[in-house]
């Protein structure tokens, strides 16, 4: 009973209080406090993410789950970046350099380690290219998706197709050379596109408000793992 009722009560009270502070200025301090707490909780959530990642991969290693060897790579990369971050942040290599004779073997080793464990360098030369590469897959996938899916089967599909082609032309210098394309593109983006987005956003806003109200009133309880 307590397991079901207490979370619902907390949800209801918190919801009513936050709704009220929007209209009652003397209660605005509650919103500021809630933001502060959200900030603390999101910092803790980072730790939860870290702990979950380590737990998931160590479990995979223990169970020898399929492709478990990749878990070694994940955990190694995690430890490597943590060490690199601390060493870079606290200037450990600067201190090590000071303790080495110039041109000595020790100096050479410290320089090599510094290059290998430089957080900013690893970020710029590994993280950025990897993430940019993943993002660049979109260029290929939009081409294959457009080729496969943009068929004029129905009136709406034809409208989508024509609008997409005009906007694709109008957003690049080659297409803007065609008279009128840029102006039509700007009109499509400014008028029907923005109007449709606003319509969807109004619907989404109302849907969000309704779902939030259902959660506050305890009508929607699936997020607690309970049946309705």
């Amino acid at each position: 009973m307590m397991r079901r009722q207490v979370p619902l009560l907390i949800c209801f009270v918190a919801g009513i209080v936050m709704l009220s502070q929007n209209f009652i200025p003397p209660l605005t301090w509650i919103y500021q406090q809630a933001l502060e707490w959200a900030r603390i909780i999101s910092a803790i959530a980072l730790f939860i993410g870290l702990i979950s990642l380590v737990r998931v991969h160590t479990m995979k290693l223990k169970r020898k789950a399929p492709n478990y060897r990749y878990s070694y790579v994940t955990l190694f990369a995690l430890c490597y970046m943590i060490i690199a971050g601390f060493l870079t942040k606290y200037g450990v290599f600067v201190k090590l350099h000071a303790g080495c004779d110039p041109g000595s073997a020790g100096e050479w080793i410290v320089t090599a380690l510094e290059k290998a464990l430089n957080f900013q360098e690893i970020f710029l030369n590994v993280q950025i290219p990897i993430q940019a590469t993943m993002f660049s897959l979109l260029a290929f996938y939009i081409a294959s998706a457009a080729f496969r899916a943009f068929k004029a089967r129905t009136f709406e599909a034809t409208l989508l197709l024509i609008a997409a082609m005009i906007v694709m032309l109008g957003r690049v210098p080659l297409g803007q050379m065609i008279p009128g394309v840029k102006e039509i593109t700007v009109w499509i983006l400014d008028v029907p596109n923005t109007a449709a987005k606003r319509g969807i956003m109004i619907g989404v806003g109302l849907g969000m408000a309704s779902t939030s109200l259902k959660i506050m009133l305890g009508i929607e309880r699936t997020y607690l793992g309970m049946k309705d």
Partner: protein
Amino acid sequence: MLLFVLLVATGHAQSSAFDRPPAPVTNVALKDAPDDAGGAITISWTLSPDDAGGAMDVIGYDVRRSTSPDGPFQTVKSVPRGSSEAADETDLDSNVNYFYRVVVKDAKGEAPSVVAGPVQAKVPWFNLGRLNTLIATIIYITLLLYFIFHAKKGKKLFIRRLAGLDALDEAVGRATEMGKPILYVPGISQISDVATIASINILSGVARTVAEYNTRVIVPNYDPIVMTVAQEVVREGFLAAGKPDAYDEHDVFYVTTNQFAFVAAVDGIMVRERPATNLFIGMFFAESLILAETGASTGAIQIAGTDAVAQIPFFIAACDYTLIGEELYAASAYLSRAPLLLGSLKGQDWMKICLIGCIAVGVVTLLFGIESFRDFFETPLMIFRQ
């Protein structure tokens, strides 16, 4: 000769403008800023006659404050020349008398105005600027509760077909026939996001169906807290279908909280496991097309649902069925047909009708120059301000 005298006199007058302090400002007016949480006072004044730009030498104004008309005054705000208003938001206490003077400055000196005040920064009990929002909220809640009440009394409520949700049973059946699993991605946002909660609601229904069909469901998660909720919901689904032993907690797992690393992992699952059905339901960002297109390349049937307006076109292009915007929120009511949920959906639709009606009437009346409809919405505010 006369011209010479005039020239000398003008030059003397000009040099005098730079030698003497500027003329002080006049008509300093103080007002408590309305509809705030206290802590703001608006000060306005008539510009110094020497603030004409060009040859005149005023460089700015200092607004100085004290709790006593005799001082000491401290500068709380500085504004450039040409400004005739400033807002003091610096450490004001409510219900304390404050006095202000506005000091005009030039390169060589300054001249204070007469002291104005007292004024207090009051905290109103209600933000009148949001009165219309409150009225709309009350109307909305009333509509929701009215339709929920009617639904509870057993009245049948019509909902139009949502092809994406109707296809769920078919999609699960297909996976069972092919002996392949179903992949369910609940988005890449946190549990606090309403889209994620809507996704978890749908996952509950999907888990029950999957359990009945004896099929496997793989649920990779972006957020560890969402993972714990998803595990609970899927377990409940298998329990409700009477097959608790069929639930495998390793099928609902946390991947990473990095957007593209998550996408890479899910793409790998799709290519290796070859699920027959992919369900992308929740909040998505730039990775939506990568997920959908990789899924399409494996030949899976795909159902997507998101309220991220920018990603909807990508899902429409790459998926077989798409739930657009608020259709995602309607899903739990649509699948369960629970009266309470159906009633709230009806209330939502009626509120939309009211908004559409107001927009339509407003546009038409303003087109013909009739402003009374628009002014009607300011009436409650005017009544309360008076």
